[in-house]
């Protein structure tokens, strides 16, 4: 098989044939399919070296993908992306320990500056956080970044982005693991934050350039978020959410899991609370994370069994309100939130937030305290 010029250019640390194989696999076969190949090799006790696995997978690629492969390679070159393969230099060592059984990706496409192997912590949570949760994520991101810890998250709106932004605001590094390929505007219209992360940290994906968002891809990439990190902090999330999925994977990979405690009445805190009940650590102050990083390195302990069971989230309030009021109502928790924070969290204009608060107040679903609005009646 001849190796085209682009493969040599992309292959900073790999051989050109491997790069070509990786790009071909990524284009022709979703990475999820790799599991079948791997399982086969494990079953017959064959080598799980990435070169052989990729070669096998690439060999099954349908003919006629050549043009697509070329396009993907050009896109990677344009983005100045690098290609990393498990077991080869440059691949994140923390993640490599999860190969092959624990789901480490065979390859990664990386855009951005960061390449060092310093400590990393994932800060994850729901896309529909409360204002208090957003604040926690932002401050935790900034705190960790200021301490020299790389903040890993998934770039989703809400908690994830707040954590990224917090790290950026502190001038630290942050890594966003994407559920799409490069060159896809997702989350839509958040190009500025993507660019900022690529500038100060890196964007990571295992999908070929241009791969559109599909629901399962986001769940599947969560293993990379936890795998890159020594600990996972779940700020907010429902009991059946992507964030909890990440926490579960983290526990399976032997990562420490932290839950940020919240009110019993806040649906958004039900996820972290469930994690804590199942053995995750309680985040009582930001320092807890740093202390853990100092004392342990990738050792598995009691949290291994965290969060296996599922439970029902609290009953949503069954009062009929306008969509905006419902949306704002979900953001309210036990911690007071100012209308500004609610507007920022919901993306609604502040006038609409105020109208929603007036409506919720009238229905006994929101209450004004000197520090802001909280959920619940008088």
């Amino acid at each position, binding site marked *: 098989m001849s190796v085209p010029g682009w493969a040599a250019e992309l292959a900073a640390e790999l051989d050109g044939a491997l790069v070509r194989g990786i790009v071909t696999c990524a284009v022709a076969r979703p990475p999820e399919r790799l599991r079948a190949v791997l399982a086969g090799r494990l079953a017959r006790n064959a080598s799980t070296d990435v070169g052989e696995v990729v070669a096998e997978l690439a060999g099954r690629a349908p003919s006629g993908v050549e043009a697509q492969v070329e396009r993907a390679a050009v896109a990677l070159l344009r983005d100045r992306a690098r290609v990393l393969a498990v077991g080869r230099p440059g691949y994140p060592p923390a993640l490599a320990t999860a190969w092959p059984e624990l789901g480490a990706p065979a390859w990664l496409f990386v855009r951005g500056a960061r390449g060092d192997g310093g400590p990393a912590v994932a800060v994850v949570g729901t896309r529909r956080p409360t204002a208090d949760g957003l604040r926690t994520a932002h401050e935790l991101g900034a705190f960790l970044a200021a301490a020299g810890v790389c903040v890993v998250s998934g770039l989703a709106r809400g908690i994830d982005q707040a954590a990224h932004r917090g790290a950026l605001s502190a001038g630290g590094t942050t890594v966003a693991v994407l559920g799409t390929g490069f060159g896809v505007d997702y989350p839509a219209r958040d190009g500025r934050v993507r660019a900022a992360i690529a500038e100060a940290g890196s964007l990571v994906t295992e999908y070929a350039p241009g791969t559109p968002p599909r629901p399962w891809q986001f769940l599947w990439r969560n293993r990379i978020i936890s795998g890159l990190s020594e600990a996972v902090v779940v700020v907010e999330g429902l009991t059946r959410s992507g964030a909890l999925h990440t926490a579960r994977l983290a526990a399976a990979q032997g990562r420490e899991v932290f839950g940020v405690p919240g009110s019993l009445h806040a649906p958004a805190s039900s996820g972290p609370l469930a994690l804590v009940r199942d053995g995750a650590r309680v985040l009582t102050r930001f320092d807890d994370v740093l202390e853990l990083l100092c004392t342990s390195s990738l050792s598995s302990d009691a949290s291994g069994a965290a969060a296996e069971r599922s439970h029902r989230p609290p009953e949503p309030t069954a009062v009929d309100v306008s969509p905006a009021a419902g949306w704002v109502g979900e953001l309210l928790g036990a911690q007071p939130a100012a209308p500004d924070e609610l507007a920022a969290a919901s993306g609604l204009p502040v006038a609409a937030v105020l109208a929603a608060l007036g409506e919720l107040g009238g229905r006994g679903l929101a209450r004004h305290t*000197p520090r802001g609005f909280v959920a619940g009646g008088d």
Partner: protein
Amino acid sequence: MIGRARTVAVIGLRAVAVAVEAHVGPGLPSFCVIGSSGTAAHEAALRVRTSLTDLGVALPARRVLVSLAPADVPKAGARFDLAMGVAVLAALDVIGEEALATTALLGELALDGSVRPVPAVLPAAAALPAEGIGRLLVARENAAEAALVDGLVVLGVASLAEAVAVLRGEAEVAPTRPPAAGAAPALGGDLADVRGQAEARRALEIAAAGGHHLLLLGPPGCGKSMLARRLPSILPPLDREQALEVAAIRSVAGLYVGAPGQTEPLLDRVPAFRAPHHSASSAALLGGGTGIARPGEVSLAHHGILFLDELLEWPRGVLDGLREPLEEGVVRVSRARGLVSYPARFQLTAAANPCPCGGGDGCACPDDVIWAHRSRLSGPLADRLDLAPTLAPLRVGELVAAAAGESSATVADRVARARALAAAREGAGGIGGRNAGADPAFLRRTARTGALRVLADAVEAGELTGRGYDRALRVARTCADLEGSELIETFHAMEARAHRLQLRTGNRAAALRRGDRGGAGVRR
């Protein structure tokens, strides 16, 4: 032989024509002024007599009597000097009677005969055309101010000698042209400088559009004053009539006198922004002083903004004096010499810390302490406020990714459109499209039933008083106007309700706490 000259007294903003009569007749040689009480008359006599001597007029060795009529109008100050001197000269036949028939004179005489400026020239001049007087002689420094009045020929003179020459037709003084309207931009800066603070910006816009009273709550350094100072930049400019009213008040307050370094344009179209310190006395705030009360800050802020920083630091007694002007747009000040009322239709903009510790990011004060702090704001005053946005400490500004704010021009445009809509509503009773003064009964007819129910519910829930209901209704009307909506929709009322919610003082919270304890008792 009697000489007559005309001049004007000003009591508050009210001008009263005063006739000056001088009589030179038999009697012991003397110079006597009557019709004015106190030492002012004696001093005037000395000044006028000396000026006449300087002029080279030999006063005859007879009794010179000068009378100011009507006698029961309080006359203070030296503003009648020029008229008195001229009246004496008329009595001595130096000046012909016909030259003085339709001419008024205002000015203080210096010992060397020069004419000095006096306060309250504008309200005095404004009353002249109605009195059939078409010409006014004033000190040069006062001429521009007097020339603001239509239909009046204003001649600025430097000395008594010049005044005499003009009145004798021996000299020509070009009539003073009216000054150009002040086109100075608002000084407070542009709203684009304010980052984040979406709620406060929204409240500011509503306040500007409806003339509502505003309380900005926020920790020190979060930009409360910064925001308040930008309010004039989004208010529509004053019309000529309003600007004249404001100028008249400033004139009475003496802000135009002694013109060197006068910083304010005479006819200022930009709404005033007055920011008295919380150590200001009741007299300074509301008006007062000996004799005839002078206008206070509330009147200087007429058609503009009265900004009270650190509202909770103000003595309660002083603040309670704001109730009348807040409700009626006038302030009445009673003094021994009479009752004076000044217009005071200002827009109250106040600022306060949310908590005794300042309420910054690390504030850990319990809610009780915060409520106690808030309850220092008197309930009746709180009830007269309309909006109380909370400004975030700068942290949230970062969280919101600090989008650059809209510019003042953009917001001013929306405000102007909302005002135009309000002004076009007949019978609303608001002034210049300010819903804050609109008749609630009328506004109710422009609201959907659902909107009224929202507010009625709030009254029932104890969130609003009767007056609060009217005020919330007006705020809702302004929200609707800002959106260009004919009717007050339900969500406009809801927004108004949320704004009012944030205005609560501690009283209700205390009631709530009692309720909580009661509830807990039942559960046990």
